[in-house]
Every structure is written in C-alpha cells, then in structure tokens.
C-alpha cells in the first residue's frame, strides 16, 4: 500500500490537487467572510449611526430589529460596528504574535546552540507571566485603545507559535536541500527566508487563525472587566453594558445574546477555517 501512496503523492505534486473543502470548512469560510464584510462595510450595512440616541430600552420592533440599549442607541448598528473591534483586535494580535513567534522559532530552530537556549528561556518566562494582570497594568498605563490591547496580546502569545515553528524548523534544517544550500555558501538569513520559511507556513497558518480566535475571546473578557476602549463599539463592551445597565435582570436577552452569539460565531468560523487549512495540508486536524 505504501508504494501506492507514493504514487498518489506524486500525482498530487504534479497536478495541483483542487482544494478538498469539507462541509464545515465551507461553513467556516462563509461566516468568516460575512463577518469581514460586515466589518468592512459597517457604515453601509448599519441601519442607523450607532452613536445616535433614540428612546432607551426599546424592545425589538420593525424600526429597531434588535431594539435599543440604555442610551437609546440602535443595538443592531452597534452590533455591526462592533465587528470592527473584533477584527482589529483579532488580526492585530494574531499578526503580532505570529510574526514574533515565527521569527523567534526560526532563529532558535535554525541556529540552535546558545540562541536556542536563550529564546526558549525567554518563552518559559513569558509563559509564566500572569496575563490578565499585565493587561490591566498596561490598560491603566496607556490610554487603552483597541490597538494597544491587540499589540499587548501579540507580545504575550507568541510563545506557543515560537515552540511550534522551532520544532518544524529543527526538522527542516536537517533536510537535504537546506544542507545543500548551506554547502553552496548561501547566507543563513537567505536560507531561512527562502527555504525554511516557505515550508513552515502550513504550520504557521493554523496557529495564526487560532490566535485570532483567542484574541477575540480575550478582548470580550477584558471589556467585561470594564477595561475596554469606550471610544469604539465592541461586542465585549456591549455585553458589559448589557449586564451592568439592567439588561440581564429585565430580560432584555437580545441585548446580550446578540453580541455573545456574534463572538462565538466569529471565533467558530476562524477555528473551522484554521482546521480546514490544516486538513488540506494533510497535517491532520490539530485544533489547539
């Protein structure tokens, strides 16, 4: 059977195998793109300006599909504009953490020796720093804007990406073509960028998507602690106000269920997308 598989791979190699997309993959892609669209076209999609104030605590009716909140702002418009915060925090944090993580993993995996020891030592330390207190510290220090929260999460979560990239880099470092390039005298930087990096993208991509997911959950949690960015509509802040301004008690379930559901669906779509990417790369479904 094994030689047959080689043959199969051979075919896969020369003729680009069309993407086998599982049903859940399609679902993930559909939700993911619809949320991105919602974030991009918020001003167009939103029925009203999210900051404009109507009557407070209106139940859902034809004018306000999801009713209005304690300041009378239309909840549906807030919901649509809220997607922007999640996108900013999600992608900002993910880009940051993946970039640092990949770089650290590459360097420590490729050079090994002292570099490896130092970088792995640093990751141990970063793993042990309690995250929520640090976020509160910096939120207290700087003017808390969403970019800061994204930046901060990026600086905290690169460790797991670094570990994954390092182990992959260690493997690739031993392969023939890398040894060949080294013997041809290419600079290690060139080798890392042109040979090792392309081969670890299939490991980095799912990690990138998963860190988007955890960044979004963290943003919602921080807003719950009341440290969100008040100048920007975000789902986390909506839930926070829903619970602190009587939404929970007076049974205005649409006020907190809508953003809660959006967060879950957006994160779900990102996770499904991540696992689909993994499946296509025949690295089996590793949902970390």
């Amino acid at each position, binding site marked *: *059977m*094994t*030689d*047959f598989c*080689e*043959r*199969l791979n*051979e*075919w896969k190699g020369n*003729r680009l*195998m*069309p993407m*086998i997309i599982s049903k859940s993959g399609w679902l993930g892609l559909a939700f993911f793109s619809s949320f991105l669209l919602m974030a991009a076209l918020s001003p167009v999609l939103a029925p009203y300006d999210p900051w404009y104030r109507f009557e407070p605590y209106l139940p859902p009716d034809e004018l306000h599909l999801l009713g209005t909140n304690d300041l009378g702002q239309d909840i549906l418009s807030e919901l649509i504009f809220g997607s922007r915060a999640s996108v900013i925090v999600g992608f900002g944090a993910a880009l940051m953490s993946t970039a640092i993580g990949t770089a650290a993993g590459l360097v420590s995996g490729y050079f090994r020796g002292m570099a490896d020891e130092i970088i792995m030592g640093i990751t141990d330390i970063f793993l042990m720093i309690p995250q929520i207190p640090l976020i509160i510290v910096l939120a207290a220090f700087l003017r808390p804007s969403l970019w800061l929260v994204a930046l901060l999460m990026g600086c905290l979560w690169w460790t797991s990406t670094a570990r994954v990239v390092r182990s992959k880099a260690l493997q690739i470092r031993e392969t023939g073509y890398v040894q060949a390039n080294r013997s041809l005298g290419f600079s290690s930087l060139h080798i890392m960028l042109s040979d090792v990096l392309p081969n670890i993208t299939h490991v980095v991509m799912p990690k990138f998507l998963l860190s988007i997911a955890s960044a979004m959950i963290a943003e919602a949690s921080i807003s719950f602690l009341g440290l969100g960015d008040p100048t920007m509509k975000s789902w986390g802040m909506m839930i926070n106000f829903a619970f602190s301004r009587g939404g929970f008690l007076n049974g205005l379930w649409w006020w907190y269920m809508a953003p809660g559901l959006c967060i879950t669906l957006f994160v779900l779509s990102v996770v499904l997308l991540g696992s689909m990417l993994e499946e296509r790369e025949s690295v089996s479904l590793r949902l970390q």
Partner: protein
Amino acid sequence: MTDLQDFMQGCSRAASESMANNQAILSIEDLSVSFETAMGRVMAADGVCLKLHERETVALVGETGCGKSVVVSSIVQLLPGNASVRGRAIYEGRDLLSLGEKEMAGIRGSEIAMIFQNPSLALNPIIKAAEQIAEPVIIHWRLPKSQALDKAGEMLRRLGLGNRAIPGMFPFQLSGGMNQRVMIAAAMILSPKIIIADEPSKGLDANSADEVMGEIARLRDSAGASLLLITHDLGLARKISDRMAVMYCGQIIETGRCEDIFNQPLHPYTKALLNCLPQRGFQPIPGSSPSMIEPPEGCRFYPRCPERQDECCMKAGLQMVRILGPEGEVLREVRCRLY
C-alpha cells in the same frame, strides 16, 4: 509462438507434481480495487486472479505503484477508507472480502500475518519491542502478559536476537534489520497459515536483506506456512519463491514457476523487466507506466511494448492464456495477444 513450444518441452515432471496434490489455501478471484480521489476514480487493481497453495511461496513482482500492495492489503481489509473492493478472496471456504471487521480481526495475526515494509515506522516508538511481539498472544490466546513475554523472548532467540537487553529496548534503539526481525517475530508468533510480506527487504542494506529473507524462509518452513511475497527485487523473488506473478498497471500479466519465468519469459513486459537486472545489462524500459485513472484500452503495455501489433490496442478479446500441466493444474498464464 516459439517461446511457448520451448517452454512446453522444458517442463520437468517433478516440478509440476509438487503442485498437483497441494490444495489452494487462498484463491483471489477477479479482485478489483478502485479509490475515490479528487482526481477521479483510480483503478488500482483490475480483475486480479491469483492462487496460493499450501506451503507455497508466491512472489508478486512489478514496478513501484503497479498495485501489488493494494491487492495484498485488500485480502486482509487494510485498505484506506476511500477504497471500494469487488471480487472474492476465498480462504478455507470463506470469502475474506465479505467478512465483518470483528471476524477479520480474529483472522489477522493468528491465521494470516502481515509484515510491513518500513520497520522503524511500523513499530510503536514508545512501547517496548517484546511487548509488541507478545501482543498477538495476549489478544488472540488471552494469555497473561508474563507468559506472552516469555513466548516473545523465545521468538526473538529463534530470530537470532537472543541477547538479554533487546526485549526491554524500544524500537528507536534498534537498527532497521533488528526492527524488521521484531516485526517478523510479531507476525510469526502464532505461527499463522499465511504470511504476507510487503517489501520486507526494502530500505535494508544488501546483506541484512538477505539475512532477513533467510529468517522468513526458515520460519515459513518450520511453521509449514505459505508466503505471499511483494517485492520489486526479482533476484530475491527467484531465491525464495516457488511461483511468481508479474503485475503491470493493476493487472497480472504473467504467472508461472520462477525458473520457467526466468528462463523463458513469455510476456514482453516480463522480458523487459528481466533486462533491467544488473546481470542483464541495466536496459531501462522506455516510456513511463500509464495513469490508473484512464488506463489505455486493450493491452496496457501496448504503448511501451516492443513487440506490439495493431490489434493489441483494441478493446475486445484480450484475456489470460493458460497453459495447463498434465493433471490440469495451471503451469503458466500470460495476458498477451502473441499467444
């Protein structure tokens, strides 16, 4: 036609006798296996017929990727999920292909054992070698672990790995040859009736390959088992097997006793295959093996066949020509219009 007649005279009486009174322990009848892939349906085996007699060793040879592993794996239902299998594999009156997984698990390891190609990957890296050998005993005969381990130790000694430390070691601490012996021990521990060996010598250096094959042959004889050997190494096949079947692009194109095939190859592909051997001058076969998704019509070797004729590529009329021995047992088969 001349080769056929030469063959008829060359047939020695003794050889055919030894086959006559043996019953066929395993007979594969019209086996077809196809895989659903994104590229379309891959016909990995197309109407394969093969008989394995008691105490007989049959070598299934062919280029890499001609589907020989698929045939063998389908017998013990070890094919991946997207495979669909048609045909029958009769073993002791039962069709193996229609058995449920539970019954099949009962047969695997105890009556039909399989030796994989890549020993260091086929053994679980984090379980001791002796335990992996003893496992079939625990599973099939329900013996307590201690007794099973003793039997495993005994098997290892029979395979020349008697030194004290080995049972306690892990596969990654052993060489490729030693791992292969561990796999053989695991396969042979319940002395199965049929051994299926899938490229056992591949990946091993020359002399350890010979040693391993010698071990397999010795164990096969002492257990009185029949062996179905998959290999692309014709020299090895000649040394150890009684009969040989040559496969090309999912079809068996020629079978017969080793000596007969080596001396008078009938099918042009078999001739070309033999010419590739070092002792015959390393002549490569022109062209490449056809795709199994849209195989060429008629004779699949047609595009590369030096002795091809016009009607070779016609769809109809190509079937297996059989040459029977005195008591009606099949001496030779060949799928070629020349005969």
